[in-house]
């Protein structure tokens, strides 16, 4: 057991910290979940890409640094410590890209990854449908073979598509064999949102941003080269992505360490009037962020020594999503009557509280995650 970072890792951290300190925009950018803010965030993504910080763990040929998992965690710690902008490209680089690396052809990787990394092409996720949320295998949007065109015709509706109104492309599941079992007969498609037959309608979220969208497809054409993995193999391919989403690639510990540090700053400004129970909650928030950090180092060591992530990633998703809610609830208690303000210096907490509440819902609700833990980690019987 050696819990010190290597010289190489320390040098990597120092380089990241120096670049971020010099370049993180001040004042903070407007929310990336609005049209104006999204455009500003894409400019930031371009800066990250040009300095090769956009996708540190990727191969150099696609703009990365071939950073190890440990270095990626270090970068994330520095990124959030610096108060850098939200990653509006995250659904592409953290959710689709791992699937492309695993299942994509060389042609797909070369064509898609560089434009994704630079932010030239922004990706959104098209999984949920009006009648298929937690029960993802219940999707009914379909794709019909277009032999003459050399591709597929997609028809149906996707919903709760994060930043769908601002993105260029969508990755999602569509039913290609209506006769097959629910989990079979699905295919993973990469869809151009500018294609004929695609209509995107923004939906305002709980926090007031236009972060959601509904995507309507009517005979929209997708060429064969934009099928990811095999036809009717979509479930297997998609599950690889949910593994990344629930696991450490979506929400690394650095994010919550930074939130806990901001909570401590807030506490210090209000310490005189603080109830001991609130003080205790502040301490718990910090300790839980530590717990997440060390559980991650534990897992990453195992992965670097050849292990694989499995259903344990559901425990991780449960932990960070509920931690985020607790930290924000504590911050609102510290703010007292000013908690309701959505203007001024402390508005980020009410905004963050509302966003934190989405954590136990997205990427598989926490009820589903607890089922996964019980059935696939603990071995309890399915119904």
């Amino acid at each position, binding site marked *: 057991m050696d819990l010190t970072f290597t010289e190489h890792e320390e040098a990597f951290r120092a380089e990241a910290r120096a670049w971020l300190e010099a370049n993180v925009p001040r004042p903070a950018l407007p929310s990336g979940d609005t049209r104006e803010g999204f455009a500003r965030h894409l400019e930031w993504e371009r800066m990250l890409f040009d300095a090769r910080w956009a996708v540190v763990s990727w191969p150099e040929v696609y703009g990365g640094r071939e950073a190890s998992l440990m270095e990626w965690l270090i970068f994330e710690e520095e990124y959030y410590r610096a108060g850098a902008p939200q990653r509006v490209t995250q659904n592409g680089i953290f959710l689709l890209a791992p699937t492309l690396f695993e299942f994509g052809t060389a042609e797909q990787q070369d064509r898609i990854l560089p434009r994704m990394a630079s932010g030239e092409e922004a990706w959104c996720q098209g999984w949920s449908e009006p009648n298929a949320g937690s029960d993802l295998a219940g999707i009914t949007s379909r794709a019909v073979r277009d032999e003459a065109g050399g591709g597929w015709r997609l028809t149906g509706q996707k919903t709760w598509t994060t930043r769908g109104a601002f993105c260029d492309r969508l990755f999602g599941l569509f039913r290609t064999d209506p006769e097959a079992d629910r989990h079979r007969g699905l295919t993973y498609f990469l869809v151009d949102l500018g294609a004929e037959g695609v209509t995107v309608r923004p939906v305002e979220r709980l926090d007031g941003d236009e972060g959601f969208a509904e995507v309507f497809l009517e005979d929209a054409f997708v060429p064969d080269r934009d099928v990811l993995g095999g036809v009717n193999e979509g479930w297997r391919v998609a599950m690889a992505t949910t593994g990344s989403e629930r696991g450490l690639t979506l929400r690394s510990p650095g994010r919550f360490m930074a939130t806990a540090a901001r909570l401590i700053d807030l*506490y210090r400004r209000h310490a005189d009037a603080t109830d001991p129970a609130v003080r205790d909650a502040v301490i718990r928030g910090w*300790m839980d962020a530590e*717990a997440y950090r060390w559980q991650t180092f534990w897992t990453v060591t195992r992965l670097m020594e050849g292990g694989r992530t499995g259903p344990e990633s559901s425990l991780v998703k*449960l932990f960070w999503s509920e931690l985020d809610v607790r930290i924000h609830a504590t911050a609102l208690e510290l703010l007292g009557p000013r908690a309701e303000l959505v203007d001024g210096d402390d508005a980020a907490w009410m905004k963050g509280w509302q966003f934190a509440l989405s954590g136990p819902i997205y990427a598989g609700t926490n009820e589903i995650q607890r089922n996964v*833990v*019980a059935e696939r980690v603990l*071995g*309890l019987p399915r*119904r």
Partner: protein
Amino acid sequence: MRFSFTDDQLAFRDAVRDLLEKECPPQRVRDAWTNVDGRSGAWDALEEMGVVGLSHPEVAGALGVDEIAVTLILEETGRFGLPEPIVEHTAVALPAVAQHIPEAVTDTSLFVAGGPMVPYATSATALLLERDRQLYLVDRSAATLTERASVDGSRRLYAVEWEPSNAVEIGGPEDAALAFDRGALGVAAQLIGVAQHLLDTTVEYAQARHQFGVPIGSFQAVKHHLANVALGLEFARPLVYRAAHSVARRDLDRSVHVSTAKAHASDAATVAARVALQVHGAIGYTTEYDLHLWMKRAWALAAAWGDAAWHRARVGRAILDTDPSEEQ
């Protein structure tokens, strides 16, 4: 950064597990409630294997063993519910006594430690005790022991009256702080083992017990209870291992790391006990069934060497009451 155990550490842990499986079955834990000294009878076998004396500086130095290896073994002793003063002797007192007065360590010496109550004090040759941040070794005959009853019937507790004038001073505030952190770390490791046992046996029960024609473990309400136990354990365990590393390397933030670990381990074990009882239902509420042995151990150890609230308060003083400019 390599946050994992070595093959040697894991192999030794496995050997201890094999020994405890043989020498400390649940019946031995149960017997310790009613026998003379509250102990398992497995101490000699553990001594022979080298577990008891593992933390003696000479042994540890020769084998390259430190608190990290000891922590992994203590976790096993928790899993088997071993009723012995292994934290008190091996984790806390032996390394302190051997470092400061090596001649006090003989083949037959058994040291215990703690406060305000000391477990297994009548079995011991001497007690390692703290007063005004000084560490003393008190011969058993120089202390007045008054028996106190623990909720865990195997933990024979004693209130101790003693005078520094009848004791040997063996260390100052730093030694006292290190001894305390070793104790808190040791019971934190045991609590992880206790919680794992409670989870394993409760999952087993939920698979086997049928109601309404199906295993009760197929009900979502039961599943979610057990998932919560797994969650607490998953995030407490690495904190304990990290605290072990900090104690072994005398990290400057050692006490914060130990307190974070002990608070999480106490919470993980008490949640495990709470859920275990609820899922077992009435059978878990009897003393005829073994579950109570581990639940009561969880409660006793959660309270020993600082409970979760005490440790959170200690963390709070370190992270909230210091000058922010001194932090990174």
